[in-house]
């Protein structure tokens, strides 16, 4: 599994996360897809926009809503060589959050930089 896909083509994948974590299945599903995709050794980036920034809020505890606490998975992404996490500054700030509220290391970028990240990506998945 260390080899690249046949032909060795590496593309820039971008996973766009725009939903809050627990009200719908989107965020958890996105993580599953990212982890499965990680086996293919592509150039993977994750973007957190709008309510998607809430996915990264630290100290989530789902015990009392009886669902899996998948927020812990974000800390494991690094081991899957998924290391590029981008958070849109405007989304974070308009929700009253700062970098200190987040559970993992991310790069905070502004709308202009996010625009470029999207434009430069070759394959985009939306959640």
């Amino acid at each position, binding site marked *: 599994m260390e080899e690249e896909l046949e032909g060795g083509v590496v593309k820039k994948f971008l996973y*766009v996360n*725009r939903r809050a974590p627990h009200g719908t299945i989107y965020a958890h599903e996105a993580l599953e897809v990212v982890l499965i995709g990680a086996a293919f050794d592509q150039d993977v980036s994750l973007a957190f*926009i*709008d309510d998607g920034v809430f996915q990264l809020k630290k100290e989530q505890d789902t015990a009392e809503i009886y669902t899996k606490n998948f927020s812990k998975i974000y800390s494991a992404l690094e081991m899957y060589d998924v290391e590029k996490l981008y958070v*849109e500054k*405007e989304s974070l700030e308009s929700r009253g959050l700062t970098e200190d509220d987040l559970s993992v290391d991310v790069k905070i970028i502004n*709308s202009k930089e*996010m*625009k*470029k990240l*999207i*434009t430069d*990506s*070759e394959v*985009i998945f*939306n*959640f």
Partner: protein
Amino acid sequence: MLHTVNKSPFEKNSLETCLRLIEDNSTLLLIEDAVYGALKNTNIEEKILNAQTNIKLYVLGPDLKARGLDKNSLITNIEIIDYKGFVKLVAENEKIQNWL
């Protein structure tokens, strides 16, 4: 690059976020409930008008028709296309971003 939006801007912020993050000279196609975003005299009309200076805007005809809307309900300079036109846009653009 082709961007599509399929949610009403009065319920979700998908259209607004798209307009914030869309590159100049891109193409934006409004489909399904997003066609409501093409209506004139709404509280997001100004944002649409501003966006039109930098991007080309389309709306999917069958979705308009289904909702009892037509050209007269829309902001000017928004082009109405049919499914063939949709396919053409997809073929013309190497990449697509769907704002859900």
